[in-house]
């Protein structure tokens, strides 16, 4: 079975049919349904045009910079020692290959907790994987890139926590890229059964300063009454391009807290979709961005309330330095009859340079009347009144600005229950300011 060869090179770039065929050969052990989904995804990828300036879902983005050329679709992996400030990873991927694994405690294994690769999961937990893997809709505009991910994804993590089991320590997965032009397709699939609890950390990092192409996804499924904390820390090299697609499904009385930290990449787009599917579902969506140099961070979010009595709370904060640029485009959708929805959406941009540019598109689409929906967006420099207050206590202007800037992030970090994670994230943020 071969992939279509008819698609013009301009639509496939560094990912032509031959590259896709090569990818498929590397997945010899994968089940037929997986390969079928990938073939369909490749068709979609090759058929879709590149985003255009006039596409509403790409408004304010630099679409001219979205080249598909100059990358290596199936880069080779060379063993490299990778360290993560979050600790020892349970699974470490480099250039789409597992390079390191550390088993979860035996007690958890006994309880049925699974932390493994997608390929192994396909063999050992076929039904689970088939139900959840590549099963989420793409609604935020990156159809082409999401399809590219679905076509090429092979290496990725599968985290499964059975009913009623609580995993106390964070499950850590690192996704790394190395070598000029390497394309990586990180994937993390988390499934929490009824009343399960877990914290999962994805750390995205470059092993060198070369330009990489990262096109990843993380799908989170929170079953009935479960509680999931998800951290995504993106620290690709400054010359890389990054696309990351998140889909979160929240079932009855479940609660998901996700915090994405965006530091790396030359141009990074992050799409996050929360589907609140049953009463009592709650999704807390947090993001922090430190943008400097000429970086562009493009964040698109969607909070869909599909059932009554659901709650979502979004807080995205961007600090902009130098000539950096950020875009936040968020939408809260309340379906008809999703009464008693409580939805909040907030984007705060802190301007630390006169050359930076922040765009905000906070949106609402409400079709039920008994709801509490609010959003807000602010863009400003450090508040001169706060600055004066600190100075009036004897703190110098420079020190006051630093305190206030870190305070800007702390408001989000304080939402985390885990102090160790809070500390690692704070250190990562502070290191950006010391460059």
């Amino acid at each position, binding site marked *: 079975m071969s992939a279509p060869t008819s698609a013009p090179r301009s639509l496939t770039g560094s990912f032509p049919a031959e590259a896709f065929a090569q990818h498929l050969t590397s997945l010899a052990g994968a089940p037929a349904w997986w390969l079928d989904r990938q073939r369909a995804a490749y068709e979609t990828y090759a058929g879709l045009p590149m985003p255009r300036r006039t596409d509403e879902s790409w408004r304010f983005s630099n679409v001219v910079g979205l080249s598909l050329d100059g990358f290596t679709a199936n880069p080779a992996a060379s063993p490299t020692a990778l360290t993560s400030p979050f600790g020892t990873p349970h699974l470490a991927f480099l250039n789409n290959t597992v390079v390191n694994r550390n088993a979860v405690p035996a007690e958890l294994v006994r309880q049925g907790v699974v932390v493994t690769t997608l390929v192994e999961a396909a063999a050992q937990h076929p039904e689970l994987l088939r139900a959840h893997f590549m099963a989420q809709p793409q609604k935020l505009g990156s159809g082409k890139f999401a399809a590219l991910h679905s076509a090429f994804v092979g290496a990725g993590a599968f985290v499964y926590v059975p009913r009623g089991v609580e995993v106390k320590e964070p499950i850590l997965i690192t996704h790394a890229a190395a070598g000029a032009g390497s394309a990586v397709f990180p994937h993390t699939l988390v499934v929490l059964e009824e009343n399960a609890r877990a914290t999962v950390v994805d750390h995205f990092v470059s092993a060198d300063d070369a330009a990489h192409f990262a096109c990843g996804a993380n799908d989170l499924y929170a079953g009935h009454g479960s509680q999931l904390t998800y951290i995504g820390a993106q620290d690709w090299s400054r010359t890389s391009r990054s696309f990351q697609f998140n889909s979160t499904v929240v079932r009855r009385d479940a609660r998901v807290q996700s915090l994405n930290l965006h530091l790396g990449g030359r141009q990074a787009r992050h799409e996050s979709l929360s589907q609140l599917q049953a009463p009592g579902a709650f999704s807390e969506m947090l993001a922090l961005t430190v943008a400097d140099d000429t970086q562009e961070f493009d964040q698109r979010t969607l909070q869909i309330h599909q059932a009554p009595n659901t709650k979502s709370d979004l807080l995205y904060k961007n600090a902009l330095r130098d000539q950096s640029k950020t875009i936040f485009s968020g939408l809260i959708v309340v379906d008809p009859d999703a009464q008693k929805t409580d939805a909040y959406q907030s984007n705060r941009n802190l301007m630390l340079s006169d050359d930076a540019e922040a765009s905000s598109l906070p949106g609402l689409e409400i079709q039920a009347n008994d709801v509490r929906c609010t959003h807000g967006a602010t863009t400003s420099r450090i*508040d*001169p*009144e*706060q600055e*004066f*207050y*600190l*100075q*009036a*206590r*004897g*703190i*110098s*202007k420079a*020190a*006051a600005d630093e*305190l*206030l800037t*870190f*305070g*800007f*992030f*702390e*408001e989000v970090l*304080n939402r985390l229950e885990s102090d160790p994670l809070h500390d690692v994230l704070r250190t990562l943020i502070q290191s950006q300011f010391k460059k």
Partner: protein
Amino acid sequence: MSSLEIKNLHVSIGEKEIVKGFTLTINSGEVHAIMGPNGTGKSTLSKAIAGHPDYKITQGEVLVDGKSILELEADERARAGIFLAFQYPSEITGVSIANFLRAALQARLAEGEELDASAYYKRLYDKMDRLKIDRKFTSRAVNEGFSGGEKKRCEILQMAMLEPKFALMDETDSGLDIDALRIVAEGVNAMRGPNLGVLLITHYQRLLDYIVPDHVHVMYDGQIVKSGDKSLALELEAKGYDWVKKEFATASAR
């Protein structure tokens, strides 16, 4: 023994002159109260002395121990011993009280010197206990979500920790119920003594029942129009500010 001398001070906001020739000397150990109707320049005076960038001093002098502070930035004035208790304290998102005060104390140390953390916390908790501020507040962001009374107590806490030479207290009584007022007054009274001079700005006599001033001044139209002892405050309470206005009008008509 220190002195804060304010000499013929003129302050403008934008094009508008608010303080018009204010003169007063405060020595350590003294408590001066400034009373006056709204919009008469009381708050402007305190912010201008503290160095708020929006307030332009067009004429006059402010000296601490004989040295002008007008060329100093707000933080340098603070370190020279001026403390402003704000009427409306700013909410500082994400900066905890503990970190904030630590930064403020650290700023007062010489380069390379480090604050003794355990001594710091010991002192902080002690002051908090006295002001009846829950110790949990140390990890809360400065003033964020505080009630009016909590904000004012937090101001006094900062004053107690930073040990200024002179405290300018801008309508510290506003928005306080009687219990909070008592706690705040006790806090200030505890700090009274030979090392502190206080300028108490207030609209109502009420606060002066709790913090008894050595001197009372009436401010009107940007300057002091009457001075006396604490009995002046009572007279003012009885006769109202119209009395001052009338007297002032007669005086300037002459």
